[in-house]
């Protein structure tokens, strides 16, 4: 096995010190000269026409500078479907829709004046679930949907609430079920949730007198925001400058455009002064992006010998009031509903449906856990029906080398050794006997196998600027957003390896500023290590080539006779004839003061190799890089209360190459706990009127310290030829297995099949009752 010097070591993150000293600057910590504050009015109804907005009383309140409404807003925005407006104009479509805003000298004054705005509404029917909004006679949430610009690959169903229908056919599609001996069909639900990062969203927008716009936002896609605002306000992209300060977690919902257009609209009424908005926790739930909201109806067909032949999935996605961000989640969820298995025939449909709930956007896992909860439960149900061991049944159908996945990509060895992952997890979880049921508890265990693809786009590029200083140290500037995942550490280690210099000589950028940072599409899809890493290696190669070309002039030789070792450029056949890298960094300065050669600096970028849009049957090449793995749970159920207690959670992923063992463990630890939260407690709940009943962290319960189980985490390393030094993405994969593993383990414990999460104590208690009846 190839050994690396810096890759694979547990280096500490460069931003750890600023974060433990309280000096890291997050959005709410940004203070600007003459800054104003804004608070946004949200409606009392989740679906209603706006009859009138009366602002005069609010305008008289202390500290108030201006009250803003959506009146006269002419533009729509959105990157997939332009169905969004910065502020409601004629109607509100969900409970967090911005209706009006107060700009004042302090946030407290702005909030206090909100009450004084009077709005008259005419309520309309409210739908909080895709199924209801799809009903034949349902009122339309977007009457003018047909007029919206959308990507040419998207297709709305006119006269309905269906914003897009995605359809994939492989082989003979549904007809392929005629080859199956056994067919099962079930429906599953992964309800609406929230990323619930501990830092809420916030945005500052400043329309400046020099006709530029400057923005600070809790965003991982400053370049998209820049392009969007430039488009909306009809300015050159170069005149919009967006900063991403330190981010207090993202997990998906700080991608895409979330609150920026609304705050920009508000700030456009007070040109010359920066306007700051920081969401309350409640607004973070009601007025930014939610997650999941996916029901999966799945039909699976297999031969008697356990060979899967056909799958049919229908994804009903409660997309929210605006579908721009949900539509790609639906698509990813649909074509990945196969899990890591091969089927000759696939018929997969995904409906993105408008509902009167906050828009759904990205959440770590991006559609995969939402449909693979179905796949992994179905695998256990099918194995039971076939009388096979669930793992043996899975193994028979793994997407291993040479197999073809649903979108038509042939899998290669480098897609990872799922078999090894599964075997290891199997040993871990089933290696010792299960405790027998006692008075207090009943015990269950189960394992699952999962996969995740990147969700790319045609221009999903990551750029890298590298410059060497006159002491041989290096500064690296990229557009990747550090949300906590530790990408700066990864950059440092990959660059050190590529440049053959110690990480201590490399300094990584601390903020993204579109004025200085190289372009990056957005930091999503577990793609940074793979693509960003490739960009770093390309930049390093160019920088070394430039050093060599200067050295060739100094040493009076051809470039191809030269070697580079991080410290010197030297003659291959006589290393004593050499020049120090530090002496080449600014070009080489001769003793008589003449400078030879060029500055040692480089620019590069990298993207998903051969990404293309799928054809009309959903067949294409979407990623190349998949990461697969296996997860398992060991749990007990408290019989008195129905509470599910996770004893131990196991994960093994084939990540190609571990870059930083400390960070990668941290990433999986956190991802697993998030998904345990989703499986056991987290659900954004709506009443009939479309109001969220639990928009607070004491009601929307995310796992606490005491609830974190012990975890065993291991990695298989089958090098990936594309990623840097063999590495693959792993940022999201850890969240996929928990929900189905827990449901399968509940069956193992009590013999009752559950089909939706969260499995709250009351549901488990009901299942315990059902078990008694079964007995």
């Amino acid at each position, binding site marked *: 096995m190839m050994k690396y010097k810096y890759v694979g070591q547990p280096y500490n993150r460069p931003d*750890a*010190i600023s974060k433990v*000293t*309280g000096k890291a600057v997050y959005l709410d910590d940004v203070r600007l000269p003459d800054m104003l504050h804004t608070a946004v009015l949200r409606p009392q109804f989740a679906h209603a026409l706006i009859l009138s907005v009366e602002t005069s009383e609010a305008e008289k309140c202390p500290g108030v500078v201006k009250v803003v409404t959506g009146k006269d807003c002419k533009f729509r925005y959105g990157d997939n479907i332009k169905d969004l407006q910065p502020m409601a104009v004629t109607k509100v479509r969900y409970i967090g829709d911005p209706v009006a805003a107060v700009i004042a000298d302090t946030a407290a004054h702005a909030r206090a004046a909100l009450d004084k705005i009077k709005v008259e509404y005419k309520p309309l029917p409210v739908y909080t679930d895709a199924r209801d909004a799809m009903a034949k006679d349902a009122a339309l949430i977007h009457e003018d949907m047909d007029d919206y610009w959308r990507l040419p690959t998207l297709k709305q169903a006119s006269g309905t609430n269906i914003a897009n229908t995605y359809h994939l056919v492989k082989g003979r599609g549904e007809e392929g079920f005629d080859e199956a001996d056994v067919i099962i069909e079930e429906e599953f639900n992964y309800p609406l949730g929230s990323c619930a990062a*501990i*830092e809420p969203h916030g945005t500052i927008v400043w329309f400046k007198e020099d006709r530029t716009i400057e923005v600070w936002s809790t965003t991982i896609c400053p370049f998209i925001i820049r392009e969007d605002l430039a488009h909306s306000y009809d300015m050159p992209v170069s005149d919009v400058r967006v900063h991403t300060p330190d981010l207090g977690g993202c997990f998906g919902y700080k991608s895409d455009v979330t609150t920026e257009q609304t705050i920009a609209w508000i700030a456009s009424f007070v040109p010359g002064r920066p306007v700051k908005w920081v969401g309350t*926790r409640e607004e973070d739930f009601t007025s930014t992006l939610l997650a999941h909201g996916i029901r999966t109806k799945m039909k699976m067909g297999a031969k008697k010998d356990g060979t899967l032949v056909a799958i049919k999935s229908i994804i009903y996605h409660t997309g929210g009031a605006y579908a721009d961000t949900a539509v790609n989640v639906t698509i990813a969820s649909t074509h990945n509903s196969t899990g890591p298995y091969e089927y000759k025939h696939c018929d997969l449909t995904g409906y993105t449906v408008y509902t009167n709930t906050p828009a759904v956007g990205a959440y770590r896992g991006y559609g995969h856990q939402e449909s693979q909860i179905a796949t992994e439960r179905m695998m256990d149900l099918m194995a039971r029906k076939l009388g096979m061991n669930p793992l043996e049944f899975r193994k028979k159908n793994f997407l291993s080398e040479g197999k073809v996945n649903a979108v038509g990509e042939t899998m290669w060895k480098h897609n990872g050794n799922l078999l090894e992952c599964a075997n290891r997890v199997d040993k871990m979880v089933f290696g010792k006997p299960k405790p027998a049921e006692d008075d207090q508890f009943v015990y269950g265990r189960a394992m699952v196998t999962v996969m995740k693809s990147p969700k790319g786009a045609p221009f999903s590029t990551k750029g890298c600027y590298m410059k060497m200083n006159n002491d041989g140290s290096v500064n690296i500037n990229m557009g990747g957003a550090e949300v906590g995942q530790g990408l700066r550490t990864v950059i440092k280690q990959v660059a050190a390896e590529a440049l053959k210099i110690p990480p201590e000589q490399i300094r990584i950028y601390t903020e993204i500023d579109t004025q200085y940072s190289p372009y990056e599409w957005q930091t999503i899809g577990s793609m940074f290590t793979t693509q960003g890493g490739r960009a770093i290696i390309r930049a390093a190669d160019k920088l070394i080539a430039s050093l060599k070309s200067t050295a060739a002039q100094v040493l009076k030789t051809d470039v191809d006779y030269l070697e580079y070792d991080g410290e010197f450029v030297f003659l291959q056949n006589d290393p004593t004839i050499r020049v120090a890298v530090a002496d080449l960094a600014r070009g080489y300065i001769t003793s008589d003061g003449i400078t030879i050669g060029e500055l040692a600096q480089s620019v590069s970028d990298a993207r998903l190799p051969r990404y293309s849009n799928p054809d009309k049957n959903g067949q294409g090449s979407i990623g190349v890089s998949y990461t697969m793995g296996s997860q398992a749970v060991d749990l007990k159920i408290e019989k008195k209360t129905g509470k599910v207690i996770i004893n131990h959670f196991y994960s093994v992923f084939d990540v190609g190459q571990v870059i930083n063992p400390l960070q990668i463990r*941290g990433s999986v630890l956190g991802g697993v706990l998030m998904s345990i939260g989703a499986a056991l407690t987290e659900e954004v709940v709506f009443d009939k009127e479309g109001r969220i009943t639990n928009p607070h962290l004491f009601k929307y319960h995310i796992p606490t310290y005491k609830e974190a189980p012990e975890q065993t985490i291991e990695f298989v390393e089958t090098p990936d030829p594309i990623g840097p030094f063999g590495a693959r993405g792993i940022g999201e994969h850890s969240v996929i297995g928990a929900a189905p593993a827990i449901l399968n383990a509940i069956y193992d414990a009590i013999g009752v099949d559950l089909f939706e999460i969260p499995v709250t104590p009351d549901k488990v208690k009901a299942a315990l009752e059902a078990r008694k009846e079964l007995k």
Partner: protein
Amino acid sequence: MAERMTFTINGKEQTVDYEPEMMLLDLLREVLNLTGTKHGCDNSTCGTCTVVMDGKAIKSCNTPAAKAAGTSILTVEGLAKGMELHPIQKAISESGAVQCGFCTPGIVMELYGLLEANPDANEVEMTNALNKHLCRCTGYEPIRDGALIAQKMIKETRK
């Protein structure tokens, strides 16, 4: 009408004007520009706003600013001595306990309140203290590791 009070902040006595309805968190962040203390929720659930008042870790988001009069408040900015980090900061920064870091200042101050008063805090005390803090990134294990290392370091300096 603004009111006036005197208190000690990070070792320095200071007199400030504040609005009567203000919470300590707003006083620290908005009046004194001590932005290391974070604001993560509306209902005293997340723990990011934790500071130490007269040696005890408290939530500054539900402590009225007026309560600070005459007390001594320590925030995350007051822990390091110049370039030298407090052992808790050192341990937490090296154990993998920091990802996005938004929960970090609150956790650091919680541990300060716990371990400065009681370096021998047992597992239950430690668990109860850390359970007051939400972290969405780390799965808590590295925070526990950091807390235990910090405890060891503090004990050693006390020997």
